[in-house]
Structures are given as C-alpha cells and as structure tokens.
C-alpha cells in the first residue's frame, strides 16, 4: 500500500521526449515572499487551490506537541469578515470541497471547485492568514474534537498505538518522534495562547506556498494572487534547526500487548536519509535516496515484488507485508516494514524472515526482470499520476514545503531510472543494519 502511494507521488509529468499532454507549469513570487505555482490542466472546468505553510509537528517541542494540528482545526472558526462558518457555507453553496491536513513538515488547506472561484479561494485564504479570530469558547469545544480524533485514530486503534510507539522508539533527537496529533497530555494541557503564538509566528506570506492546478491561465492566477495576497506584509519567521539522528546505539525493541488487538503486528523501522536531509548534509549522496525508493519497489512495489512472492506466497509466513518510505521529508526519515503473520507463525519467526529477505538483496541482487518491472511501472505511473489534479497539486506543495524545488517532480523520474541493482546492494549494506533499527511487536493479549 505505501510504496504505490510513494511512487505515485513522484511519477508525474512531461518529459519532453514523451508524447504526453505537456502541462504548463509556472512559478511566481510576490514581493512579500509568497510563492505561487500554477499548473494548467484544461480537462475539466475545475481547479484545486492549496495553501501550504511550512510548519508542522517537526517544528514543535514537548509541551506543545499537536499545536500545528489544533491550529489547523481552529482555522475554520472564522474571521471578522467571514465569521461563524461562513467560509464553509460559501464553499458548500458553490459546490466546492474543502479540508486541511497537517503533517510533521507542513500544514495545508485546500478548496476544489469551479475554476472561476480561484479568486474567491485567494480572498478567503488571505483573510484567514492574517485575521483569524481565536475565541476561548470555540477553542474549548475544538480541543475536545481533537481529543476525540486522537481516540479514534490512535488510542482505540491498536495499530495506531503501535506505530506511534515505534516512532518514539526509533527517533532519539528528531522531533519526528512526536505524533502529529500530539501527545494526549499536551493536547489536554493546550491553551488558546499557545495557538495564538503559533499563528503569529508561522502564518505569513513568506512562509506560504500557493498551488493551483486546473482550468486556469497562469497569468490570470498570478494577477489574482497579487490582488488578494499582495498587500500582506512579510514577517519574521523562525527556522527549523536541523537535527541529526544518530545510529549505532544498538537495536531497539518494544514488545506491546493489547487487550484490544486481535491480530498481531510487526513494525521494523530503519533510520534512513530523505531528500530534505541529504540536501542539508554534505556527507550523503542524494542517489542513496533514489536507491532506497527503488529498493522499496523491488521488495514491495506490486504483487510480483519479493515480499509478495516470497513472504506471502512462497514461504506462506505473512498475510500482509509492506514498506513505507517517504523521501519527501525535511529530516532523516524511516524505511519501515509493517507485517502481519499468518496463523501459526510467530512475530519472531516473521522478523527473522524479513531480515533475511532484506539481506537477500546482497546475495541475489535484483535481476534484469525485476529492474525492468520497476522501470515500466515508474514510466506508466508518471502518466497515471496526472489523472488527478489534486494529486498533482499535492506533489508540488509537498516538495516546496520541505525546501525542495517543485521541478524535482520531473527530475525525480530520471534519477530513479538511473538506479542499478548494484546501487541497491550498496544501500542495503549502508542502511539496513541492526543498529539503525527499532522493532515493535504488537501482541493480542489473548494470544499470551
């Protein structure tokens, strides 16, 4: 499940040699620092408008974890010009969809609607970038909503709890050890004042990227952006100090039991570089990131990949086995394996089998067929990924929000296709090592 999503994030757009409908993409920067990227796509009379702020849980510290996410909720509570849910009423009446999402690296808001409403999106977003009204009474209700969200996603979900615990185990210094939604005690202790400060600090035109994909003209959109965002003042924005995660402390291991779990789960997370972290360091070759992405594909790209062929079918040890790797991250990230054993196989047995499957890359490097398969899928996916305007906008926004150039979405394909089997062997030797690993086993209490 993960690797497909990761691949599709990067498999985009027009290399000139290909007979693709080449999308027109253009970048603009307003004098207040706001960046605008527009991609024209005339297939349907609609547009997606996203505004990305470079702030997320990675910018938080213990005590206020979850503040970016809580603020995201409060951003729907209105301004003087558009009070009390007026924003959402307007979007609904005009047939739009809207929502927002927060991650470790960014907070983003979006509307999808008829392309004639792009100016209205800008007006509403510019307004709540500067004029949000934060009321105590609304905050007290909304923090309960956030707690209910946490119960739903994490506290009542054994897999969610195990993933949260695994992240906190693997990272020592990195703020990635904190959950995006925040630790329960931090959410409970949060004050409106924490949100107010956060909003003042990070919500500024020079910390924002606006992405528009749809049936629009870049020139006209640029004009609208100047009209609505142009008068906002540039502000001083803090920066995220880069943290370097250490490896070599030994294998970390956590065995959790849960009276809620009915199915055992194995999580194995290796600390690896991301595109963001290699750019901040002189020591690591960026090609390592591309090789790790191809490694994930060879192991878990589709139903013919090694995990499916060997662990799920051949040896019949796992009923589910997948890899997650998100190279578009600010800081060092994880190469994470999640697996569920078949009945009668223990998590220890499965763990041994997965390790040997990873190291098998060194003994039997990917064959020409395996590399060819990954390449075919990368080439196909760059076409498939263009089907969704929302997907296109998200790729652009993510890259920009972790400090990368959005044009990397095109170069990424080229870089991926240059990776060889030898490169995969090298990254397995370099990163798939037990002193960079944290294992979490989740055991149903009834099985003990």
């Amino acid at each position: 499940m993960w690797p497909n999503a990761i691949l599709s994030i990067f498999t985009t757009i027009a290399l000139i040699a290909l007979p693709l409908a080449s999308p027109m993409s253009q970048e603009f920067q307003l004098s207040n620092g706001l960046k605008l990227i527009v991609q024209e796509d005339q297939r349907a009379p609609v547009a997606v408008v996203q505004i990305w702020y470079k702030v997320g849980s990675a910018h938080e510290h213990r005590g206020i974890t979850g503040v970016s996410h809580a603020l995201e909720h409060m951003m729907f509570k209105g301004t003087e010009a558009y009070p009390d849910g007026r924003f959402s009423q307007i979007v609904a009446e005009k047939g739009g969809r809207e929502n927002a999402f927060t991650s470790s690296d960014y907070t983003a808001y979006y509307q999808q609607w008829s392309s004639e409403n792009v100016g209205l999106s800008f007006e509403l977003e510019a307004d709540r970038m500067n004029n949000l009204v934060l009321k105590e009474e609304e905050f007290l209700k909304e923090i309960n909503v956030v707690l209910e969200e946490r119960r739903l996603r994490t506290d009542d979900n054994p897999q969610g709890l195990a993933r949260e615990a695994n992240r906190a185990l693997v990272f020592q210094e990195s703020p990635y050890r904190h959950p995006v939604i925040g630790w329960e005690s931090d959410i409970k202790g949060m004050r409106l004042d924490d949100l107010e400060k956060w909003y003042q600090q990070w919500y500024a035109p020079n910390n924002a990227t606006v992405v528009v994909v749809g049936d629009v003209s870049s020139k006209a959109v640029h004009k609208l952006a100047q009209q609505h965002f142009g008068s906002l003042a540039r502000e001083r924005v803090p920066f995220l100090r880069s943290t370097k995660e250490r490896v070599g402390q030994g294998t970390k291991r956590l065995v959790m039991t849960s009276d809620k779990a009915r199915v055992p789960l194995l999580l194995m997370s290796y600390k690896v570089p991301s595109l963001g972290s290699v750019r901040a360091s002189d020591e690591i070759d960026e090609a390592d990131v591309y090789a790790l992405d191809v490694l994930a594909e060879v192991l878990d790209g589709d139903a013919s990949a090694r995990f499916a062929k060997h662990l799920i079918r051949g040896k019949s040890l796992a009923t589910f086995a997948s890899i997650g790797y998100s190279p578009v991250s600010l800081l060092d990230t994880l190469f994470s394996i999640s697996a569920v054993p078949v009945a009668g196989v223990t998590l220890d047995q499965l763990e041994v089998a997965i390790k040997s499957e990873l190291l098998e890359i060194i003994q039997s490097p990917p064959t020409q067929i395996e590399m060819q398969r990954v390449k075919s899928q990368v080439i196909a996916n760059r076409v498939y990924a263009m089907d969704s305007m929302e997907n296109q906008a998200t790729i652009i926004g993510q890259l920009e929000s972790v400090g990368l150039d959005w044009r990397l979405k095109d170069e990424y394909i080229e870089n991926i296709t240059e990776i060889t089997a030898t490169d995969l062997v090298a990254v397995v030797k370099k990163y798939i090592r037990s002193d960079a690993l944290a294992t979490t086993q989740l055991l149903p209490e009834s099985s003990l």
Partner: protein
Amino acid sequence: MKNFVSTMLVLLLVFPLCISAKVQVESWSTENNVSVLYAQVPELDMVDMYLAFDAGSIRDGTKHGLANLVSALILQGASNLNVDAFKEAIGLTGGILSSGSTSDMGYIKMRSLTEDTKLEAVMRLLKLALSSPRFDDIDLDRLVAKTLIGLDFKKQSPAAVAQDELYAELFAAHPYGFPHEGTAESLKSFTRDDVSKFFNEFYVAKNLNISIVGAINPRQAKAMAEEISSVLASGERADEAFSPPSKKTRGILIKRNFPSIQSHIRVGVRGVERGHPDYFPLLVANHALGGNSLVSVLFRSIREERGLAYSAYSYFSPKLNGGSLVAALQTDRGNQEEALSVLDSSLEKLRLEGFSGEDIASAKDNLTRGFPLRVDTNAEILNYLAMIGFYKLPIDYIETFAGNVGRVTPAEVSKVFNRYLSPEKLVTVIVGPNQDGDE
C-alpha cells in the same frame, strides 16, 4: 491496438451524451449483446476499462463470502501461468489489473498505457484470466486465510462491529445482512468446486457491462469490448435478485460491549435503490442531514456546537434492491448519552419541523454545482459509466442529474424524511465500553 474485424460488429445503438462540455459518452452493444459505455479522453496516453458483472455477494446464497473470494481469485494465475508468473507478466507491462466485489457487483478493472505493445499485453492477460482462471487450491487456501485474518481485524474495530450489527438487523437473513467477506464458518467450507461453479454461473457475457475511458478512438474501444466479451461464455442472465423482505419493526436499540474508550453510534434505516421515485428527495435529505461535509445538520449539532465527536455524518447507500441511510458518530463513553440524545432530538426536530430552507438550498447547490468535481478524472468518469451501465440507469443520468436534484422541493424532502426515518424504523447500534445488559 490490433484492428479487430470491425465489420463483424453489430452496433445496436450509438447514443452520444455529454459528461461535460468536454467529454462525450457513447453506448452500444457487442455482438454477443454486452452493453458498453465509452468516453474518449484524449489528453493522457492511458486507458481504463471496468468490467462489472452481476456477481456480487447478493449472489452468495447461503455461501457467505463466496462472491468476494471468487473476485479475488480471478487474478491469481490463469492457464499455464501460475500466480507468480501471472503477476510478473502484469508488472512488466506497467499496467494494473485489479478485482473485487461489492454487495451487488463482481468487478475487474484494467488500467494501461495506450502504447500498442503494452495495451495488447495487458489485454492478453486479462482475457486469459477471464477465459481460464486457475483457481489453484494453494491460492484459494491463502486467500481464505487472509480473509479470516481480515475478519479478526474487523473484530478489533468498534466501527466495523457496529456496521455489521446494523446491517444484520436492517436486512436480517438477506445477503445484504451478512458481511460481504463472509463468516469464519462459511469461509472454511469453500472448495475449488464452489469457486468454479460460481464463476461459471455469474462471470458470463449476459451478466456483464463494460465501460471504457481513455485516449483510444471509438474503433479501438469497440475492438476491446469485442475481444473481452467474446472470451466469455454467453451464459444465462442471473435471476432477478430478490429484495430484502420487508418487516415490521418498533425502533430497535442494540448495545454491544467493546474494550474501547469511545462508543460508536450508528442509526440506520432502509433506503431505496437508484431509479426509485424517492431516490432524489432522499439523496438531498441525506446531504442536508450529514452528507454535506462541514455544514450538515449533524456536523454542526454534534461537532461544531458541542465538540462531541471528530466525525458526525450520514451516508446514503443505494443498492440493487433497496439500500440504507445511516447516521454515524463516535464519542468518549462519558459523552455517549449526550451525543445520542442530540442525535435523536435532531432527527425528531427534522421530522416535526423539516430542514431549514437554507439547509435544503445549500445541500442542493452543493450536489448540483459540485457535480463537475465528481467527473474530473478518468477514474471517476469510469466509475460513473460503470454505475450507469450496471444499475441500468437512464443513459442521460449525468446530464439530467442537476435537473433532478434541482427539482426536489422542501416538501418532498420532508415527506421522504418522515416516511423513511420514522421512529419505528430506526435501528440504533452502540458499540463501546460499559454497555451493561446486552440486548
């Protein structure tokens, strides 16, 4: 794509209609009478195909979960290619074949680049799967084991437990009342014979609708549809599926203990199928109640005004025979009584006073003006064509959608709301901690 012998095609009808100013739909029947819907979208060099068979879990009979298992087994090897060889062959084309089932439908979807050699290779594999699936015992055993673990996963989710309890009560002994992946007992009993028999009976040309969307011309689309339908046995049209028997109820409350922090609450009623005269008024009623995401009555009263839940919404699921309308929320056990009473009193108020004019207008506007967003990708256009074809909706369904929603009056909404959501028809399910005294 190979030029199929187009002179052999018997084109019964070609109806152009519009999805938008930019996308036109054509419809025709293949030589062996399979109906096809097709939209040419030239911008991206890819093509999608959706094969919808009348082979959903409504065809399970007493073998609950069989339809779901068969749909998964179709793509686990064919002819001389075992599952490993079959999956590798697909992977090398860059194409995607996927399959699955719903309560009404068994489906296979194909996505490929339009490049000749690649599309031909994917089509060859798809035809092989349709004409000679292997149904090897080892694959059957693996998928049964996987489904059994899936059932255990559901047991650790209070939302999934609540959903199953609700459908079991709403639809009783009808297949809609059983989890479509089956039960532990039924799954363990399936043999290769069951699978082959089901496949041979239901995966036949007479039960198939084909939809095609992408950068291929009408001649190519016709050839593709012909190639697919001609590898299938003609077969017999499945019998008219029977409707869930109607029953008299008196407002039912089901409580289940669960080791969670939150209580999951669902209130559901029987709904109607697409094409029913009450369909559009109910669609609007549901949208105003809990479908119009951040502005619906439930979102406002449960979340915005009281902070009682992260998600409070309703969904309307029309099926081949009837369907359901369900309101759902989840909240800390300590808030359960308050949330339930807000939900109940919201429904009661709507029965007595109806929706406000603003809520009806906002729901209708969102549905009609938002329609272009529902068909702004090839994948979504494909899903719409498949729905129109499979559920035998009027060919101008998309064009007339806005008008049909627009004509719904507040009086009609009130009428269907009171008829379908009257107190004696409501089934309430609560799954959470400390639900003393299971009922």
